[in-house]
């Protein structure tokens, strides 16, 4: 029993943080929103090189997995920096392909290295307009799709481009491996926690310097208490995330996803309220996290689906 990240895991987080800070990730995300993928693809190669996807891929296919704690560590950083692109979907694709050995050897190594980007969808496939590998979940089966239509539908998060997969394709697995979606949920929960932490940090900084009525608004008690509540929600979601990564039990993952996504969304509401009008603008960077906090709630398991999974499976005494 030592429920703390190791020094290596912390160092992994720090290295990703440094990489993403240096990369000016917000401007990469803005370009991505506009359908300009060059900078995003370059960043993709770098984060893959730093080992973001390796924890989700078995060693047999040039990964280092399964290492769900390391995956969670990485995805908290991706969320903190609002990295665009189908990062969760690439993890899910890896989990799905691991169950299809005849394809895995060909398709998985490029995902680990960042040479290829994958997405997974059903009605929509996130960033299917640029992904190299498009998997489709339909009728309980996994299909390798021929690609997506070029036009995308807008998401509430402008950095998420919802493409419609083309019909047809090759059958990859006759059934969706039951644990695969758990990897997507875990990664989404981690990403959401990172989004929430970034929103909290940025808002704390903002209210410390924004002056109204002659004082920093961060000295108002109503402001303090909203931020304290955000901190409480996020800090109690964090151990659920890493506990779920340790067990990979579906109900634990579902619990982590509910807690992380609700905490991130509540923090987004607080961040917007305390920033005021400037927070409501697309040009101010805060919007990158605000909009993501909303949509991650629904991605790979709505709050209702995840709470149902908790009721089915969460047992508190072992």
């Amino acid at each position, binding site marked *: 029993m030592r429920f703390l990240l190791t020094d290596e895991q912390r160092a992994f987080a720090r290295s990703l943080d440094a990489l993403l800070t240096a990369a000016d990730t917000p401007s990469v995300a803005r370009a991505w929103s506009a359908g300009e993928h060059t900078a995003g693809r370059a960043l993709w190669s770098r984060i893959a090189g730093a080992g973001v996807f390796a924890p989700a891929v078995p060693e047999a296919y040039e990964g280092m997995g399964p290492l769900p704690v390391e995956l969670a560590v990485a995805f908290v950083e991706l969320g903190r920096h609002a990295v665009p692109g189908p990062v969760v979907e690439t993890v899910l694709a890896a989990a799905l392909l691991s169950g299809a050995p005849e394809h895995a050897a060909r398709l998985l190594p490029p995902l680990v290295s960042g040479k290829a980007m994958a997405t997974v969808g059903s*009605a*929509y496939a996130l960033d299917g307009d640029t992904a190299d590998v498009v998997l489709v979940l339909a009728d309980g089966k996994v299909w390798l799709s021929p690609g997506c239509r070029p036009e995308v*539908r*807008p*998401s*509430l*998060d*402008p950095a*998420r481009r*919802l493409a419609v997969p083309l019909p047809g394709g090759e059958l990859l697995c006759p059934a969706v491996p039951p644990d695969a979606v758990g990897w997507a949920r875990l990664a989404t929960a981690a990403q959401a926690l990172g989004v929430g932490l970034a929103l909290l940090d940025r808002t704390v900084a903002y209210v410390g310097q924004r*002056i*109204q*009525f002659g*004082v920093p608004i961060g*000295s*108002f*008690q*109503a*402001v303090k208490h909203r931020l304290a509540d955000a901190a409480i929600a996020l800090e109690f979601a964090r151990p659920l995330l890493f506990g779920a990564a340790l067990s990979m039990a579906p109900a634990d993952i579902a619990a982590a996803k509910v807690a992380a996504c609700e905490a991130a969304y509540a923090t987004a509401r607080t961040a*917007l*309220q305390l920033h*005021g*009008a400037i*927070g*409501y*603008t*697309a*040009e101010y960077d805060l*919007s990158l996290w*605000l*909009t993501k906090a*909303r*949509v991650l709630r*629904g*991605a790979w398991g*709505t*709050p*209702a689906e995840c709470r149902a999974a908790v009721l089915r499976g969460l047992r508190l005494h072992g």
Partner: protein
Amino acid sequence: MDLTHSPADEAFRTEARSWLAAHVPSTPLPSLETGEGFAAHRAWETELAADRWSVVSWPAGYGGRDAGLLRWLIFEEEYYAAGAPGRVGQNGISLLAPTLFAHGTEEQRARVLPPMATGEVIWAQAWSEPEAGSDLASLRSRAVRTRGGWLLKGQKTWSSRAAFADRAFGLFRSDPDAPKPHQGLTYLMFDLRAPGVTVRPIGRLDGKPAFAELFLDDVFVPDEDVIGEPGRGWRIAMSTAADERGLTLRSPGRYLAAAERLLALWQAHGGPASMGDRVADALIGARAYQLFTYAAASRFLDGTPIGPEASLNKVFWSEYDLVLHETALDLLGREGEVADTRWAEGYVFSLAGPLYAGTNEIQRDIIAERLLGLPKGRR
């Protein structure tokens, strides 16, 4: 105590309903926060005005029907129940026009109001400045006296509608030496296409240019476009702001219609029991807002001015609207992510409610201090 409308008012309702049934576009107009949508909404204002439905509460001489507050509420109920478009003229109609009725000259009303009613001139508001959000008394943009008028200098922001509108109104500091910060402000109207005006549209969260920054570089405003006495703008604006937060900014009709649509959405999704309480609360909230407004209107018609209970109203509708849209998006599940839907557009709009027209924090301070009588303190 009576909630039934008079036969004459019910006849007015029937007339409105019939007209709307015949005229409301069968497919939604494009978003009014786009150039194309703005033009379509302006045309709709013109269509409303052609049959005197654009400003029902105004005197007939300016294009209205002398409808009174109750008929205005009835009209709004019918308007939103019919699924009619959002009102691109709202800034002018509900903020500037009441100010002109209270503080303008007859000449100003005759010149400004008719083209406002027809949609020929769409107005933007120009209150906020980068350093003056909730703290309006700290405005810094200047109005400097010149021959026959004033020169505006400075910067305004969060000017809603300004990306596409024709004219704007706002407060400017005309006497920087006034002893107190809320003195020495002048209420002015100006042309957004006048020389010296630069409009920089600002995208809201979904990128649509719902407001703009205005850079004003010696913009000439003739004396005829000053409302009320120069230097008295703060008091004039506060009476407008009290209207803004009072009964007319968000009519109950809007939320009655939205709650009915939410109920239909819930039913279309099979009426999941896990969401039933939230849908019920949306229905209850819409009815509460309607009845609260009828009570406030009854008091107002009895001669009691709208006081700090306007702040109750502001907090209620803004939080209600957001929760209602969050419920809808949750019902839509993963589909709720798609942004080009009516629910998603309404959600993005509703996110601004708690932070504009006086943040809800300011409103709660007002409720506590002025309505409940709690001691003032630093906030």
